[in-house]
């Protein structure tokens, strides 16, 4: 918890990571809208686009979370101060908060630019929530791995995609249904996302020590 608070405080001061993340996401969103918008994408395509944008934004914006520590040399201090699990939890919460704040700004933009309407808003938000939690979880763990390697940016996306595929596929399908107004399969999708998030978090906790301790 304290780790998360510390990161949030640092972040709030400079807002560097968040603004970079936001700018990236907005840029991609705008690019997509300009290029695809004219074709009046249907809810299915739009749902896919939303999650693609979220995915790449996470890839671009989140790895810094661990790289920062390595760069600034605070990593050693952090290792001594807190148990690995605490560090993981803190970083995860931070990433989740980051993604949620991003979504708050990005989703309305999505509706406006791509001319979408959502017929099942409650479910849509629920799916979004579960999906983002999973996205944050995977990003956190893989960011930790990537921090110890070279070529961070590219590696992040390459590693994340296969692991995130179940989440992306399910989220897109469920989001599509929510936008279009059909309840079909949404409950099952949410259950799946919930289980997926659980599995990822559990595995992260069990394996994080191996990543973190040098």
């Amino acid at each position: 918890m304290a780790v998360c608070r510390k990161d949030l405080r640092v972040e709030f001061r400079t807002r560097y990571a968040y603004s970079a993340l936001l700018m990236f996401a907005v840029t991609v969103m705008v690019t997509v809208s300009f290029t695809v918008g004219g074709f009046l994408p249907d809810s299915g395509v739009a749902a896919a686009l939303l999650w693609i944008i979220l995915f790449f934004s996470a890839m671009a914006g989140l790895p810094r979370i661990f790289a920062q520590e390595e760069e600034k040399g605070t990593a050693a201090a952090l290792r001594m101060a807190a148990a690995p699990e605490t560090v993981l939890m803190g970083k995860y919460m931070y990433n989740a908060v980051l993604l949620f704040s991003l979504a708050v700004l990005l989703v309305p933009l999505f509706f406006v630019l791509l001319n979408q309407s959502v017929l099942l808003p409650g479910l849509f938000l629920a799916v979004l929530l579960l999906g983002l939690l999973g996205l944050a979880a995977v990003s956190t763990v893989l960011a930790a791995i990537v921090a110890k390697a070279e070529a961070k940016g590219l590696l992040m996306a390459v590693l994340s995609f296969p692991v995130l595929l179940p989440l992306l596929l399910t989220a897109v399908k469920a989001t599509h249904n929510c936008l279009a107004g059909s309840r079909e399969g949404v409950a099952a999708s949410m259950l799946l996302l919930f289980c997926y998030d659980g599995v990822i978090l559990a595995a992260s906790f069990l394996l994080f020590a191996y990543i973190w301790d040098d």
Partner: protein
Amino acid sequence: MAAKIILGIWLAAVIIASFVYMSSTQGLGETGRIIIYHVPAAWIAVLAYLMATVNSLGYLRRHAIRLDRKAKVSAELGTVFCLLATVTGAIWSKAAWGLYWNWDPRQTSIVVLLLVYGAYFALRSSIADEDRRARLSAVYAIFAFLTVPFLVFIVPRVYFSLHPDLINIKERSFAMDRKMLVVFFSSLLGFTGLYAWLYNIRLRLEKLLHRAETRGEKHR
């Protein structure tokens, strides 16, 4: 040694049988013969990944670099067989249905496995330190492995609903007659044998290289 010769002859026999002994598959004609190669290759690709994951778990528990070596070797071979499976799948798809790619659940799954393998090696090649490389790639292998079961449930449903007009290709829906079953299982056995042999060779090579490296360092 004799075993290897037998393996060679065995698979040669399988190849011949798949064209001559076996009659053409019902429903898919001559192109269906490729199943004899395509499915075992995919099966081995998965088996190899399973081995890699188990060895990764072992490495994390016991910190023995030889287990990391085993994981890496299985993954390498797995990638090769996976490529083979993907390519034969695409060839078959083209020959039988006119498209190289059709988002059939199985075709998608095999590509995901290929992506996992690719990611695994991308990760490995970006870490210089041996122990760190072993540790991190082991963690990744396990993570990727955990997400696979989800795909088994998701992919058939998602892609079917996304492409409702897709020709629903059920590879196992056509029955394999007696002859084909025989050839198929023989092929499976042969492929497994081939994998075991290649694994053995590759592992020995790795060990030799590793020993040569460490010796070179000692002499410095």
